[in-house]
Structure formats: structure tokens, C-alpha cells
């Protein structure tokens, strides 16, 4: 492979620079860097963005090869070997662009957003650590290293969600994220074990070569277990509960980790395991079902939420569901396409919401907002672009990707899935524009003093907004056109081999579906317009009429309560039982009992010590007699 020495350097730096940034900033940030603590991490992350683009370029220039480099042997235990091995192919290339560019923009944004925060240096240190882990995850060429990155981003998620750790809700949210993730990770680990047991290796190439030889039952289990990990990491039902709570973390964190990069890790991992899933149709079916259900479920919840970040969080869950829907339905390229676009517009939406919150002096409740359009116009326009991209209006990015997914479902015969997807699209349009209308239009409902302080954010925050708005708008056309045979499809061909691409029927079914979904989206916008601009008393009345439905949506479908009752309470009860019965009675009983035994023995043996020598002499004499008898017996015989 020519030109690989530069690639090696690039890949090594991609991994090492953020790590170095983390260590240095963490160690020295508090004393030496203080308010300038962002300098090193931001500089490093800019470099990694450049390197990501370089790596992407390399893949473009070498369409049929993948860069593979086993740099360093880390684990060598009998048959199990784990190396620091890297793989850069077209899938990696896409991920690198997302992670590298959005990561960089978020770092810049954070300079403004986190200004004056006492934990300034810590934030940037953690951000860099996250970049390190994320790069390891996407660059890995074996499941073990991927899992290292996987756990690493989970850790950073925890650290950053509970960044303002003195706030109780924040630290609890961090714990929740980590624990729920753990459940998924457990499945992932089991899946890895199974892979290793059946194929003897964890390297992607090794595993995929043997994919066809694995028995179908085992393969099904492997895929399901791996998918469990994805469910946890990418917040699908029922392990989605951590994502909305994760909004306790600072907005840049939400943008980077919970929209653009970390939550995509699950999707990436499933996509990477394409050769395994392709042979396990039941697993794909389950993936699709889970994704579909999650998509509509979280969209349903999103329409009643009042916290601006929560709405976007549920939207993310829904979007991720969409991606899994795509993968499960067989539209692999569409799914990754959606991931690509989603990273940009969802990240944009989060950063814009951060800008809004910043302008409102920390207020996140949309009921306190309104009429911000004139006051923070740049935020408004960029957020609008993001929203339009989200709901899938032609010609922005979301449209092409979403449409390809739904169209593929319909054409493939999954009408139910298509219908659910359409409804989800409708709901998405409703809540997205509900957000826009409540926040930027109408009367400003904020108090007098808050209104005074509303201002546009600093350039360091607004420039990333603009930079993200551009791909949100244009990516679709650039990359996904024409549908089914656009650039991205050809680009990802080596990864998703053997996939059929039907020629897109512009005038027939394909075109019709496209128009229909566009109409649905616009309908949703109209509904939101009516409810929140024209007749603002409507939402209240609808809520009163459909009270059960409204309550269910508002209370997040009671999932947290379900978790509280079923696993949590029973675990606590079990722990309590273990304490009162096992620990107190059995263990303490055994230990104390043993002590009592010695005590009693001592008490019983005490009378032997009479203090009278004659008694002792008797014992000695008796012993002597016994001894003589014994000796005589043995010597005699």
C-alpha cells in the first residue's frame, strides 16, 4: 500500500493527540492554564479534524483497499490476542468526518459556552478524552479494541453528564447513563465471547471471513447480543431512559456525545458487523422492529415535552431508531447516510438550543420563551435550517436519507414499518416546529429582566452554528444524489458488499413515496403552526380531551417508573434481605458462633485448672502409665 507511512502517522496522531491533550490538561489545567485551558485541547482537536479529512481523502483515493495496520500487540493470552490494530475503510471514513469535524466545532463552541465555569479545564480535558476514545472506537480493527473505545466513551459520557456534579440531578443522571449502558455492554461482552468461541478471533477480517461457517443459531445469538450493546449505547427501547436525563450535562456535551458521535457508536458497530447480520435474518428483523418502535415511541413523547433540550434528546432517540430501522430493513447505505447527515443537523440543533439557553440566561423551559426571532436572528435561522433538515424537507439532507429508508421499506414489502415511519415523520415535524414556534415566534413570555439580557452569543459560538448549518443543508444533495446510486452508495460499496441497489423509479413508486412523505412533513408543520401560532389555546384543549394520551406522553410513557418498580426495587429488596438474613444471621452467626464456641470450650475446660499440684501430678502419673502401656505394647510386638 503506497502512501501508508503518512496514514500510519495520521492514524497514530488521531489517537494519541487527544489522549495527550487530556492528560496534560487534566494535570496542569488547574494551576497553569486556568482560563486558557482550552488552548491545547482545541488546537489538538483542530489538528485531528484535519487528519480526519486527510484520512477520508486517502480512502477516497483508494476506493478498493482498506488501510489496515496492526500497530502494537496489547493482549497475548493463548489464543486470545488483542492488538492496537487500525482499520480505515469507507465506513470509517464517514465516521471520521463526522467525529472529527463536529468534535472540533463543539470544542470551539465550548470556549464560549463554558466561559467562567469553575471546571473549565476539566471540561476540555474530558472532551479530549472523549475524542480519544471515540477515535479508538471507529478506527479499531477488532472487537476488543472497539470495546475499549466503547467503554471509554461510556466513561466520558458519565464524566461529562455529571460535570456539574454538585447538582444532585446531574450526578444521578450520570450514574443512570453509566448503569443503563452497562446492561447493554454486558450483552456486547457476551456477544464477543461467543464470537471468540466460535471463530477463535476477534479481528474483523478474521471473524467476517468465517461468518458463513457459524451455525445459524449461534449467529443469531451473536448478532442479538451485539445488538444489545447497541441498544444500550444508542439509547433504543428499553435502554433509552438515560438519554433524556443526560441533558443534565452542558449543551456542548449533548451536542457532541448524545447527538453526533457517541450514540452513533451503536449504529456504527452494527453496520461494521454487516457480514454477520446479513446471514442472520431474524436478527435483522429484530433490529428493525426495535428501531421502528423506538422511533415512534420517542417521537410520541417528544411532542409534549417543555424542556428544549429534552425535545431534541427524544428526537435523537427517534432518529437513532430510524437508523436501526434502516439497517434492519436492509437499507444499510441509507442508514449510514442518515447517520452522516444526522450528525450535522442534530449537533446543530443542540448547539443552537445551547445558544438559546445562553441568551435566556440559563432558562430551558420553552414556556418561558417566545419571540426570540428578532433578538437572536442568527440562532433562529441556523436552528430553522436544522429543523427543516430534521423533518426531511426537500432538498435538505434529512429528506434524502429519510426518504430512502422509508422508500426502501415500502418497496421491500414492509408496509407496517413504512406506515409507522410515516407517522413518526409526521410527529417529528410536529414537535420540531412546535419547538421553533414556541421558542422564536409569538409573544416573549420571559420576565422583564431576562428579556433585557437576551443577546446573540459570541462569535466563537455562532460560527460553529453556521458551519454546521451548511452541511445540514447541502449534504443530502452532494452526497446522496441520485437516490440509490449516488456517491455515497458507491463509496460504501466495499463495506456493504452484495447489496442490491435497485434503480430508483422517479416516476413510479419511488417518486410517489417521496412526494407523499414530503406532504406528510409539511402537514406536520402546518399542524404545529395552527396549534402554536394561530390558536394557542388548542394544545390545552387537546390535552384535556385526550388526557390519558397526553399524560402518557408527558410522563415519558412511565418507563422510569417501570424501571423503578421492577428491577430497582426488587434488587434493593433482595439486598436488604441478604443483609438481614444472610449477612446478619449466617455470616455474623458463623463468626460470632465460632467465637462463642471457643468461649464455651474455655469455660468448660476451666475446672481442670484447680490450682492444686496434686491434681496435676495425678494426670502426669496417669499419662505416664498409659505411655508405658503403649510403648510396651508396641515394643513387645
Amino acid at each position, binding site marked *: 500500500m503506497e502512501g501508508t507511512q503518512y496514514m500510519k502517522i495520521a492514524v497514530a496522531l488521531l489517537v494519541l493527540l487527544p489522549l495527550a491533550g487530556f492528560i496534560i490538561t487534566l494535570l496542569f489545567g488547574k494551576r497553569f492554564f486556568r482560563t486558557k485551558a482550552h488552548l491545547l485541547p482545541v488546537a489538538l482537536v483542530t489538528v485531528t479534524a484535519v487528519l480526519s479529512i486527510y484520512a477520508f481523502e486517502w480512502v477516497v483515493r483508494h476506493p478498493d483497499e482498506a488501510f489496515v495496520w496492526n500497530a502494537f500487540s496489547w493482549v497475548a493470552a493463548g489464543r486470545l490476542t488483542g492488538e492496537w490494530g487500525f482499520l480505515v475503510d469507507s465506513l470509517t471514513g464517514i465516521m471520521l468526518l463526522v467525529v472529527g469535524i463536529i468534535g472540533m466545532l463543539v470544542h470551539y463552541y465550548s470556549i464560549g459556552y463554558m466561559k467562567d465555569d469553575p471546571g473549565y479545564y476539566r471540561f476540555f480535558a474530558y472532551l479530549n478524552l472523549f475524542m480519544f476514545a471515540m477515535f479508538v472506537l471507529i478506527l479499531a480493527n477488532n472487537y476488543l479494541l472497539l470495546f475499549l473505545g466503547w467503554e471509554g466513551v461510556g466513561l466520558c459520557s458519565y464524566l461529562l453528564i455529571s460535570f456539574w456534579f454538585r447538582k444532585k440531578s446531574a450526578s444521578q443522571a450520570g450514574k443512570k447513563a453509566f448503569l443503563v449502558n452497562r446492561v447493554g455492554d454486558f450483552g456486547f461482552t457476551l456477544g464477543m465471547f461467543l464470537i471468540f468461541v466460535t471463530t477463535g478471533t476477534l479481528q474483523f477480517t478474521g471473524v467476517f471471513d468465517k461468518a458463513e461457517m457459524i451455525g445459524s443459531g449461534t449467529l443469531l445469538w451473536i448478532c442479538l447480543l451485539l445488538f444489545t450493546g447497541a441498544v444500550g449505547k444508542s439509547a433504543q427501547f428499553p435502554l433509552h431512559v438515560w438519554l433524556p436525563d443526560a441533558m443534565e450535562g452542558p449543551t456542548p456535551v449533548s451536542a457532541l456525545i448524545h447527538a453526533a458521535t457517541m450514540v452513533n457508536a451503536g449504529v456504527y458497530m452494527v453496520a461494521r458487523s454487516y457480514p454477520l447480520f446479513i446471514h442472520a435474518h431474524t436478527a435483522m428483523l429484530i433490529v428493525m422492529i426495535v428501531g421502528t418502535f423506538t422511533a415512534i415511541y420517542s417521537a410520541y413523547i417528544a411532542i409534549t415535552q417543555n424542556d428544549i433540550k429534552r425535545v431534541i434528546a427524544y428526537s435523537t432517540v427517534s432518529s437513532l431508531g430510524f437508523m436501526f430501522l434502516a439497517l434492519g430493513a436492509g437499507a444499510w447505505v441509507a442508514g449510514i447516510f442518515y447517520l452522516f447527515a444526522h450528525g450535522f443537523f442534530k449537533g446543530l440543533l443542540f448547539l443552537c438550543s445551547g445558544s438559546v439557553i445562553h441568551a435566556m440566561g440559563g432558562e430551558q423551559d420553552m414556556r418561558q420563551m417566545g419571540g426570540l426571532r428578532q433578538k437572536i436572528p442568527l440562532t433562529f435561522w441556523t436552528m430553522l435550517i436544522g429543523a427543516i433538515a430534521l423533518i426531511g424537507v426537500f432538498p435538505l439532507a434529512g429528506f434524502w436519507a429519510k426518504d430512502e429508508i422509508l422508500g426502501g421499506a415500502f418497496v421491500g414489502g414492509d408496509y407496517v414499518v413504512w406506515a409507522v415511519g410515516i407517522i413518526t415523520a409526521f410527529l417529528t415535524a410536529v414537535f420540531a416546529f412546535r419547538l421553533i414556534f414556541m421558542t422564536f415566534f409569538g409573544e416573549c413570555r420571559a420576565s422583564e429582566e431576562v428579556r433585557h439580557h437576551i443577546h446573540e452569543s459570541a462569535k466563537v459560538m455562532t460560527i460553529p452554528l453556521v458551519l454546521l448549518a451548511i452541511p445540514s443543508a447541502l449534504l443530502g444533495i452532494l452526497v446522496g444524489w441520485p437516490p440509490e446510486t449516488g456517491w455515497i452508495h458507491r463509496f460504501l460499496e466495499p463495506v456493504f458488499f452484495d447489496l442490491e441497489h435497485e434503480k430508483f423509479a422517479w416516476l413510479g413508486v419511488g417518486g410517489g413515496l417521496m412526494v407523499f412523505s414530503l406532504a406528510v412533513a409539511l402537514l406536520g408543520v402546518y399542524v404545529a403552526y395552527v396549534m402554536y401560532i394561530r390558536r394557542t389555546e388548542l394544545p390545552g384543549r387537546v390535552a384535556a380531551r385526550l388526557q390519558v394520551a397526553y399524560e402518557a406522553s408527558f410522563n415519558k410513557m412511565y418507563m422510569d417508573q417501570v424501571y423503578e418498580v421492577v428491577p430497582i426495587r426488587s434488587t434493593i429488596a433482595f439486598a436488604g434481605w441478604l443483609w438481614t438474613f444472610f449477612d446478619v444471621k449466617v455470616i455474623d452467626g458463623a463468626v460470632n458462633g465460632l467465637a462463642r464456641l471457643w468461649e464455651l470450650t474455655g469455660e468448660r475446660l*476451666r475446672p481442670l*485448672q*484447680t*490450682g*492444686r*499440684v*496434686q491434681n496435676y*501430678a*495425678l494426670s502426669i*502419673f496417669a499419662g505416664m502409665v498409659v505411655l508405658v502401656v503403649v510403648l510396651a505394647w508396641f515394643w513387645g510386638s
Partner: protein
Amino acid sequence: MNALQWWLTLSILLFCIGAYGVLARRNVIVVVMSLEVMLNAVNIALVAIANFRGGDPGAGTLFALFIITIAAAEVTVGLAIVIANYRNKRTVQTDQFNELKG
């Protein structure tokens, strides 16, 4: 039973008689006396063996002599202790000497 065995039997019997006295009497001075009886029994055995068997001819006899000597010293000290004890406790009964009980 040859001659030596008879003498040894005598020694054994005397020893056990003395042992009984040491173990069973209440007056500590009687215990001391029984102890002396036991020592004599041992001496008899020693001298008998020295008389009937070869080997080092003087060792047995001298050993018996030393035993006599040391016995004398031991009786002296022992009785001194008994007397000192008697001064404090006004008793010579062995069951009263149980300070080390427990």
C-alpha cells in the same frame, strides 16, 4: 524371675506406694515424705542394676549417691517453703493451696 528382676520389682512396688502417697494425702508434709520414699525406690533400682549388670561399674552407684545428696537439698528447700506458706495461711492441707485456680 532372676535376682535382678526381683530387686526391680521391689523398686517398682515401693515407687508406686510412694506415688500413691504423693497423690492421695492431704498433709503436705506426708506428701514430702512419700516423695522421699519414691526417691529411695529409684535408688534401689539404680544400685541393683549397677550391681548386676556390667558396663560402667561406678556410674550407677555414684548416681545413687548424688540422688541422695540432692534429695537432701530438695527436702530442705521444700520444707522451708512449706513453713513459709504455713506462716501465711496457717494450713498444711494441699487443697488449700489453690491460688492458681482457673
